[in-house]
């Protein structure tokens, strides 16, 4: 998978989960869930950076 494809998929997933109304309910289950989901996005970004550096 090329970098461009990887970025596009990530962007698509993040946009979908953040913006599509039914998907929003998924990360609003508890008071801390929005933060956990947000952290998950950041971890993915950090891992992408790390794997890119390693490459």
């Amino acid at each position: 998978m090329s970098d461009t494809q990887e970025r596009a998929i990530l962007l698509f997933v993040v946009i979908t989960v953040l913006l599509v109304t039914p998907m929003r309910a998924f990360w609003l289950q508890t008071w801390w869930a929005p933060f956990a989901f947000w952290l998950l996005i950041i971890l993915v970004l950090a891992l992408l950076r790390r794997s890119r550096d390693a490459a």
Partner: protein
Amino acid sequence: MPLSDSILFVVSAALLGIYALGSELIERSPRWGRLGRNPVSYSLALGVYATTWTLFGSVGFAKSNGYEFLAIYVGVTLSCVAIPFLWQPLAELVDRYRLGSMADVLAFRYQSRTLGAIVTVFMVAGLLPYIALQLRAVAGGAAILVGHEPSEELGTIYALLLSAFAVVLGVRYADGRAHRPGLVATLAFESLFKLLAIVIVGGVVLFAYFGGVRGLNQYLVERPELVEAMTEPVMGDSWVALIFVTFSAAFLLPRQFFVGFVQRPGPRSLPTARYMLPLYLLVINLPVPVLYWAGRELAPPDMRPDAYVLAALASTPWAQVLAFLGAVSAASAMILVTSIALSGMVSNYLVPRFGASPESLLGRWAVFRRGTIIGVVVAGLMLHFTLPATRSLVDLGLASFVAVTHLLPGLVGTLFWRRATRSGVLAGLTVGALSWSVLTATPLFGIELDLSQAYALFGFSDASARGPAIWSGFAAHVLVFVAVSLMTSRTAEERNAAEACREPRVTRVLQVPNSAEALEERLASYVGREMALEEIGEAARAANVPWPTLDRRDLLQLVAELEGRLSERIGPLAARTYVHGGRPVSVDALAERLRAFRELDAMGIDPLQTSSAAHVARRYLSQLMAGLPVGVCTIDENEDVVIWNSELEHMSDLSEDQTSGHPVHELPNPWRLLFEELARDPSDAVVERQYEVESQVFELRAQTAMLPGDGGTGRVFVVEDLSSLRELERHVAHKDRLSSIGTLASGVAHEIGNPLTGILMVAKNLAEDPQANDAEERLNLIVDEARRIHGIVQGLLSFSRRAETRLALEDVPINATVRASVELAKLQTGGRIDLTLGPESITRATSDGLTQVLVNLLNNARQASPEGRPVTISTTAVGGEVRIDVEDHGDGVPAELADRIFEPFFTTKPQGKGTGLGLSVSRQILRRFGGSLSYAARGEGGSRFTVTLPSVEN
């Protein structure tokens, strides 16, 4: 017990003083300066996004809109996800052309100072509410801490404190130079301070009021309606609109642009900020709900929610002061950077327009810029006093955010849509500014239109939500922008600028004045001789070139440095005009670049290593690489990729960013295999290789050469993609085969015609006289000719199977075959044929094939000979060969056509009398027997065709 006014003020001033001193120390010390140049500091400095809105306003926002307050930061996170698509190309553009603001970007792309001025006015108007927000938050916080209501005096005191800080540091950094480590480091410390402040006060509340995380959980379990109130608003109309607005604000707000692009220390900064900035915003927001829940329990009923943070800390005054200092810190940084950014825009686009004389422009520029900083802060202060006190921090902040979203269409036109026109962006921006004024700005002053019915038409159920106003204004802007762009055309300058923006590597043309005197004269005509000499002198010192100079290389360096310095100070359009005489950007002036490059090259300047002058060479080299029709890759002595040109990007689907700087052995196949093989081979031989990678076939031709350098020997690889060439070859071969089949089919039809004519004539004679004495002989002739046709059809079938046709060769007696052919020819064409036979010889052939050839030659000879003149055919055995000569007494073949008579379709006969295939098919047949067919002119006129065949022993 309330704090003393003076103590709070002194503590606040001390904090700002520490920032100012630290900034100066870092700016002066190379050792400390590194703090301002690393990616972590840069990421933290981008935290200037978090202001008093974050520290105080988010709690108020959480009270009214629950977790919708997170949209303000989640939008930034989404923007960070898109850094490679949006921020990165914009950063490259800003670096390349030394642009200082979005006004510069749009003015450059659309070649319009008017556009720059409109953007400037719009941004100043849009950002003033934001500055007012900072002052209001700080003044309000101070009033709570000192125990009385917010007053004009208190607001003025803190506004003056923040203004003084902004002016002192702003003037220090408003000299037009980019990359100020002192500023970046100061902003990073400021970000750290406010982060620590809110985390600490959040921790204090969590443990002091809730008894820790477990206590907080218990509190919420007992009050499920609180959690529901937090989550429910996120499902409403405004969430997506807020995400969109903050997505744009993350990099288009003047302060974000200034820190994110103008102060970007290096290429590694953005990848780091991509995850560090969202992480920073996450951590700074974690305490917000905790502070809100505690505040709603502890705050007096009439307290504004924006002040809940301080109310929640009522029992711990030191934490209150810490929270307040966090707000002072955030507000000061925001006002500082915003005023610097806005002052640059105002100085570049408004000051020259409003009366500054050219001679004094540069001299007054610094004064104007510093004055603008003060003006911006004072205007924000006035707005703070003017705006109704009921407006929340979020209302004021969002008004600014919505304003900057209107820069997005123009930016999209800059980066992605070359068709966008100046008229389109001007019209769109005008509509955007009007919609912002009506839908967003005037409601801040209590003037609101009832648009609920209009919104309902577009499906918005809640007209009071923020979404409908945001979307309708933006949609109107985009609609007008696109429509007008499609209806208007771009000027030549716009087209050139659009190309330059779209492809940063194809950069602007450097049209260098012919001499030092010409440069001086040109600049002096705009800014006066004294100022011109001063600017040129400073640029010369910075570029380390003597002045005045007549050296072309030094002149190039000087021009590059001068344009860069002026671009940072007075905007790219004005700088180009001053240095290059106002000539439009022209990407066609290749000759000038070529000359400049050659001169640099001849002087031994390394185009990839030098700084100022190397821009010229690098631009030319980049364009050269981009224009080559073959792939070019160079590697250095460490086998790291240095150049990966655009043709190679096209072949490999790998961008230069993905390959440059990476070692060859990390490239994906087939490139790794190819380059490693070439690197091992010291010769410069051309290699052709075919690779199959993930079902894709690569057919490549490549060559390498050594690339000596100072640090060792690198290599250059030149690669051609043969895949398309091979495909073309296969296509031509297919067409050729079809053509051959067609040729043969025509030939076969031609040859079948001869025996068929014979059969018809003999059969016709026999029908008229069935009892003729030679009836049996005639019937045998018919059978023989029918067999001949059969043989031809078999030959066609063999050819069509494309197999190596293995003919069933047999021993064929030459003389007998010649006699039979003569009989057939006589039947077809009549006339006299003289026959001279030598000794009988045997050849390996097919009787049908040989007869076909001889009949064809005899018919041709008969047709060429005048009436009454004989055709002769003779056989001769010579050594291991037998020769058959067919001669006529015609006019012969013109000498100039003799070489062409064996070509398919070539004929000298009148149209309709021959297909031009007889001789070519005959030669083809004889070759298959191991023989040949040749032509020679007879000495006494006429032609001689000679069949030569190998003879075999009896």
